[in-house]
């Protein structure tokens, strides 16, 4: 029996779009409902996040599993609270420790844009200045229902994702991707190559 020529294994858009649609659906469906979440709680919004995780609102029913032991085992990071310039390097580092595919929800006015501290000398004007954000949840602080809504928007996004797009080298928010697009009056999502 002679040698069989096998293609070199590679990661990228060349191979993955060939994955059949039903398999893609299944993969996305699985990832959509097992989001291990890493809570980057920095201020009062973290309390609302905790309220969302408790029995009253109970986001485990949406497949969001709180209290990942470390960012290395998390799929989703929720930045809830005021990001300061001192804290920013830590957020970036922990984001980089998360394995792909990874998602970020910016929860609350402070992590969206600086919030009431927009003019402070020490507050970062939005966590999207240091890491890419998938869903912004507005509010000061937002109600737990708003976070549930944000999670559902993220799940919709994952459901329509093509895995090939995860490794799309096009920079986030570039003209090719159409930049930021508003898909809902209260929630803006940045396409990450979906």
């Amino acid at each position, binding site marked *: 029996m002679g040698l069989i020529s096998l293609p070199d294994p590679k990661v990228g858009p060349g191979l993955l779009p060939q994955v059949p649609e039903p398999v893609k659906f299944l993969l996305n469906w699985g990832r959509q409902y097992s989001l291990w979440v890493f809570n980057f709680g920095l201020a009062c919004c973290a309390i609302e996040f905790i309220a969302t995780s408790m029995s009253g609102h109970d986001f485990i029913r949406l497949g969001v599993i709180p209290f990942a032991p470390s960012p290395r085992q998390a799929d989703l990071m929720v930045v809830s609270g005021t990001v*300061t*310039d*001192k804290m920013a390097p830590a957020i970036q580092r922990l984001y980089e420790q998360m394995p792909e595919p990874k998602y970020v929800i910016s929860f609350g006015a402070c992590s969206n844009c*600086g919030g009431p501290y*927009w*003019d*402070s*000398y*020490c507050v970062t*004007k939005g966590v999207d200045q240091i890491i890419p954000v998938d869903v912004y949840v507005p509010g000061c602080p937002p109600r737990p229902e708003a976070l549930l809504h944000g999670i559902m928007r993220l799940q919709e996004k994952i459901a329509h994702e093509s895995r090939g797009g995860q490794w799309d080298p096009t920079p986030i928010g570039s003209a090719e991707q159409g930049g930021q697009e508003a898909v809902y009056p209260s929630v803006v999502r940045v396409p990450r190559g979906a």
Partner: protein
Amino acid sequence: MARRLCTRRWSGCRVAPDDLLAAVGARFGDDAAQIEYGTVTVDVEPAAWIDTLKAARDELGCTFFDWLCGVDELDDGIGVVAHVYSRAEHHHLLLRTRVPRHAAVLPTATSIFRGANWHERETAEMFGVDFAGHPNLVPLLLPEGFEGTPLRKDFVLASRVAKQWPGEVDPGQSAGELAPNRRRNLPPGVPDPKVWGPGAGTG
């Protein structure tokens, strides 16, 4: 001499306010001691700062160091305020001094109260007060490489310069309703564009 007394502040205190004021006045001089907003306050010269703290601790029984901070008093200089407390007698004492803006140097209080260490580090980075003799005067809260002293009132808040103040600085001065020729008041942290920024010196 202000004599307004906050009774809650004195609850549990075993020394009558006037007695404490008399004791403080006898030690530091009647002019230096007064009751302001219900607290016995002592104003001293920077040269007497360490002696005052030491006397408050050893002679007036204020062994508990609560906090130390700075106050930007504009042309009057940078105030440094320390709050000490007597755990035995339950009385409070506010000690104040004032150093010049451009030569803000004060001897460190860490030799009297070791807990003043971090308070002085914070005051140093926020107000630019140099505490001579401090064992480790490096920034406490500000990120590495931060330039400037952000709690001084002349610190420029770049965000406010770049973006118009969204609310009302003065009544009737909201951004939309303002007549175009009327001069708009500047919020704190924003210098006059005639003297600062790209248009400086253009009159």
